[in-house]
Each structure stands twice: as C-alpha cells, then as structure tokens.
C-alpha cells in the first residue's frame, strides 16, 4: 500500500512542486506584501492596512478601474453567452456547409490577439475605417469616434472580445447540445410545443451544467482582462478603458508601488472569489443533471 502511494505521489510531485514554487508561494508573498510598502529597491516596510485605506478613500483611479471592469464584465459575459448558445443551436441544425461555418466561427479564437486587435482598430478607425465609411454612406452624419472617444472606447473593446471569444464557447455548447436526447424534442413537438417553447423547456434545462461552466470561465476571464486594453487603447482615452488589472500593472511597474499593487491584486482576488462562490451556491439550485 505504502509503495503504491509513493509511486502515485512521485508522479504528481513535479507538477505540484512547480505549482508550489511558482504559483502558491508567490501568492502568499503577494498577500503579505499587500500589508507592506515596497519599491523593489528600498527594504520592505510594514504598513498594516494603509494600502487598503488609500485604495478605498484616496485613489480615484481604483474606483474608476473597478467601474470599468464591472461595465466590461456585465456586458461581455451575457452577450458572449447568449451569442455562443445561439450560434451553437444554429450550427447544430443540418444545414449545408455546416462544417465550414463551424470552422469560420471558431477561427477568431485561434487567431493571435495582437493581429485581431490591430485589424479591429483599423476597421473602427474613426476617420479612415470602413465601419464609419459605411455609416456615413448610410447617412449617419457624425458616426461614433470608437476607440478615440471616452464613450465608445469600451464598447469597441467589448465588441472585439465577444467576436473573438464566442467561437470557443459555441463549440462547448455544441458538444452539450449533442448530448440532449432527441426523444425529448420529438415528445415536445408531439405535444405541440413551438420552437421557443422547445428551447425553453428542453434545450435550456439540459445544458445548464455547460452554462454554469461557461459563465464561470467568462466571468473569471473578464475580471482579469488586461492584454486587450493594453494593445488597443492603453487604458485610454483618459481612463475610459482602464480596468483593474491595468491599474495593478501601472501601480507595480510604472509607479514601482509593489505593496499597493499587491493590495489591489488581493481585492481583485476577493471579488472574483466571491463571484465564483455565489455561482457555486447557485449551481446547486440551478443546474440539472440528466
């Protein structure tokens, strides 16, 4: 018995060791750092709750970036979810060229974020981009300035994220849809259920585990967004697209305030954890397993 355990542990040891050294210990260090002040040169100074007090009372950028993060999450997550489910249902129907369309819809997910971002920004260029060109040709006199406007910058980025991500979640939903027993649809049709009623009473309840999974993935990914904003708008114009992760990066690497950045990271961690816990609680009442 002991030998078997030893063998088992030795198999998982490398990964566990790596996780411990490169992920777990740094997280603990970061937690401790959040109660300190450190600029990477001078010695670490313990300051208790000062970082958190500053964050909640004096740092306007914290509230702005929190608001931006919530705005981004509240729009991106449901829109991606709904669109990917809709596309999955569509791609589940026996239409011609179905495989081709599935590949086309999945492709943006595979493409490099940098490449997609550059092209997206070119498309939405306020003066030279084809999007505004089309809008003006259709008679819109002052089309939105997209990423060059504090009002439209975030929607532009949201559009990019949704377009790029929905292909992946579509595939996940597709797999789930194919697990729904066809007899249920036949029974519903026999009872005279309309398309919408079939969706509401057969499809939706049967993909709830997948919905739960996708919701969780989307939420976590939205809360820690950084690279998209960095490549497209660098948090601008002004602070319109500055999300929490961006503020953390700035505090650490531009302002050299590693203690404060750690405190911000802890807050982000707690927010995401709370959201995930709420989800898990909801899952019990919400999902049905066949």
């Amino acid at each position, binding site marked *: 018995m002991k030998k078997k355990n030893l063998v088992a542990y030795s198999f998982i040891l490398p990964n566990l060791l790596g996780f411990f050294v490169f992920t777990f210990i740094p997280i603990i260090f970061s937690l401790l750092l959040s109660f300190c002040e450190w*600029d*990477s*040169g*001078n010695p670490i100074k313990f300051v208790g709750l000062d970082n958190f007090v*500053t964050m909640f009372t*004096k740092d*306007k950028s914290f509230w702005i970036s929190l608001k931006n993060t919530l705005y981004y999450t509240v729009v991106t997550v449901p829109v991606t979810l709904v669109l990917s489910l809709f596309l999955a249902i569509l791609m589940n129907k026996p239409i011609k060229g179905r495989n081709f369309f599935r590949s086309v819809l999945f492709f943006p997910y595979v493409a490099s974020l940098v490449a997609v971002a*550059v092209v997206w*920004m*070119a498309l*939405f*260029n*306020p*003066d*030279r*981009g084809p999007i505004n060109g089309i809008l003006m040709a259709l008679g819109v006199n002052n089309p939105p*300035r*997209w*990423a*060059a*406007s*504090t*009002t439209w910058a975030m929607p532009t980025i949201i559009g990019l994220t949704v377009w790029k991500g929905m292909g992946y979640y579509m595939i996940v939903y597709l797999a789930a849809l194919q697990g729904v027993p066809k007899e249920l649809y036949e029974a519903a049709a026999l009872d005279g259920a309309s398309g919408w009623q079939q969706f509401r009473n057969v499809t939706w309840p049967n993909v709830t585990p997948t919905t739960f999974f996708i919701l969780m993935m989307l939420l976590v990914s939205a809360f820690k967004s950084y690279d998209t904003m960095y490549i497209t*708008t660098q*948090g*601008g*114009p*002004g*602070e*319109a697209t500055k999300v929490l992760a961006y503020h953390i990066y*700035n505090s650490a*690497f*531009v*302002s*050299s305030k590693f203690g404060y950045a750690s405190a911000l990271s802890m807050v982000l961690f707690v927010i995401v954890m709370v959201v995930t816990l709420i989800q898990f609680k909801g899952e019990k009442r919400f999902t049905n397993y066949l």
Partner: protein
Amino acid sequence: MNKKRVGIALFAGVLSIGMLSGCGDEKKDAKGGKTDLKVAIWDYSTTEYYKTMFDAFTKKNPDINIEVVEFSADEYDNTVTTQLGGKQDFDVVFTKGTPALSGLIAQGHVISLDDYIKNDSDFNKDNYLGLIDQLTMDDKVYGVPFRKDNNLLFYNKDLFDKADVPYPEDGMNMKEYHELAEKMTSGTGNDKVYGAHFHTWASNVYDLARRPEAFDQLDTDTYDNLKPYYDEVLAMQDEGAIQDYGALKSSNIHYSGVFYNQQTSMITIGTWFINNLLENVTDFNWGVCSTPNNEGMGKDNAVGGVTPVSIGAYAKHPDEAWKFISYICGEEGAEVIAKTGILPGYNSDKINQIFDDLPKTYENAPENLSNYIDVDKYVIEQRMDPKIKDIENILTEEHSEIMTKSISVDEGVKKMKERVSELQQN
C-alpha cells in the same frame, strides 16, 4: 526491477551533475590583471557607434575589459530596475531618460557622482550646457548625459519650394504656425499632404511651452499656460491642417513614415530624427528651425530628453566605471556619435563643426545645424523627481481626453492640475 532502479539512479546522477556544473567559478574577476566592467545598455548589437566607442575606450585603457549586458529596448527600464532590485552588480547603467533615472535614484539603485566630478580635473560641467545641474535630486548629481536631444521643427524644403512659400523661421508663434500649416495643406484623400504633424505623445504639445520654461510638470500653477497651445493644436486638427489624434492612435501610424513619404510639410520632433533622416531620406531636401512658442523666444533655449549614464549602487568597480563614463560622455565619445548625426551630451566647437559638416557626407542635410545645437540652455523635458513617472502618466491620460475632444481644454487642464496636486500631496 533492478534495471529500473539503475535507470532512475543514472537519471538522478545526470541531473545533479548538470546542476552542479551550472554553478561556475564566480571569482574569475582578475583575468590576468584585467578588470571586468559590467555595462547595462539597450540595442548594443544593433547600434554601430556603441561598438566603435567601446573599442576606442578599451584601446586607451587596456587593463579594462567591457562586459556588455544588453536588454531589449522596449522592456529595458523594467528589466534593469528588476535586476537592480536583485542587487545585480552593474558597474555602468544607461537609462532611457530622466523619469527612469528618477525611479532608480528613489530606489537607491545608483550612486551620486559628486565626489567623482569634484576629483576629476578633466571633467568640466560647463561643457554640458546646464544639463549636469538638471540631472540632480536632492542637490546630488546622479548622471552624466551621454546624448541629448532638442525638439526642432523639421520641414520639407521641396514642398515649400513647390508651393512657393517661404521657409518657416525661428520665433514663430502658434498662430503663425497654424496659418503656415494651413497654407501648406493640400490635396484630399490618399493624396493629401498635411501642413504639419503632431505625434501622439503629450510632450509634443507641452514641450512647446516647456522650451521657454512657461511650463513645468512639477509646478501645477504653470499648467494654465498649456491652454493656448492646446487651443491652437485642436484648431489645426479641426481644420484638417494636421492629422486627427484619434485616427493616428487607432492606426498606430509612426511619424517618421509620414515625413519620409512627404505626407506632411512640417513636423515638430526631437533631434534624434536627424540621424533617421540622414539614413532614410535621399529624395528631398529638408531643413530645421526652432519650434513655435507664444513667449516670443527665438532659437535661444533647447528642450528635449537626455540619455543619462550612471554608476550602479552595487558596482564592483566604481572607479573604472567613472573612467568609462567620463570617456564616452567626453570629447572623444561625443565625436563618434556626432558623426552619425546624433547629439552628444557634450558640447564643444569640434562637435559643432561636425554637425556643420554633415551636408558634405549627406547631401540632403541642412547647413549650419550647429545653430540649433550650440544653444545657451538645454531645458530637460521631464524634470527629475520621484513622482515624475506618475505625473507623466496623468498628463498622457488627460492629453488623450483633450485631443479626442472627450472633454474641453479647460476641463482637461483643470483635471491635470487636480490629479497632479493630489499626487504631490500624498
């Protein structure tokens, strides 16, 4: 079973030998009497003049060997700060500008140079046109300028000749600049030639006020002086005399291509552009004059960035480091880079002559460039201060709001003042 055990033992043995061989002998310093000088720098392998200069130094000082530690230009500041955070023993540290140097000083990663300057009889502060006194924090000098830059107005002589418009001259005010840019704007669509070009950096606007010292990032009372400049630049943008900030930002257009392709008649940018033009422009003649300003100043002051060189705080050979620094920032080092059209931190008649002689090697270069280099005072673009990076961040954010017309100029400047004052009080 036995084979397995032997296999595992062998594997473990190979691993440990590999690890141990990695720990080399660290005491190889005195290689037969030579001192190893560790120099942290960016783009060493892609910049010719570094090699020329470093080789000249080692020739003169055969007992010193230079060990170049190169990092990529984009992440240089972060990398060097992180390395110094780990007490890396760089002897010489190049930094990309005063904000980076301010950060290193605040973290105690570089030492003050006052004693070296005092004890070095060959070193004369006056050759640096006031820059040494500006590379100070708490009254201590921390860097010597290796190169410096001056913001100039570059113009395309051929386009002016074609339009039969006299060349721009020193001492223009913003309104005159605006009118000239409008005159020099022509064409539509893909054939459009803009009168002037403003790059997306906030400094492209505030340097115009900084040169006559009407603006100082650390003194929020001077921020109101930015308003007339922003008003004029936005008016130029509205009338299509310059490209739109939002469009430039969305398409990541670089200012150099715009000027090379003759899509703009004028541009205000730093003297590093001289080296770029010398290498890339062969099909039109270009000239320079001083940037416009509303304070009636001619070509008297210069404004721009500096590349400071410092001695690392954990250096093993600080004395040799000073020898190196005083060489490359001195006359001989300066001559090497001046020949490629780059402005050295050091100034002298010889250097001025090199710039005046540039048209002999590069046909399209203008005459008498030394007029804009041998200037009474060099004003550093970003003052040395522990909070200068954060201040620059705020200025950039508000600049983007103003230039995209998301808020008015008055509101934008007000926000700048409020945010920077708050930052300075904390």
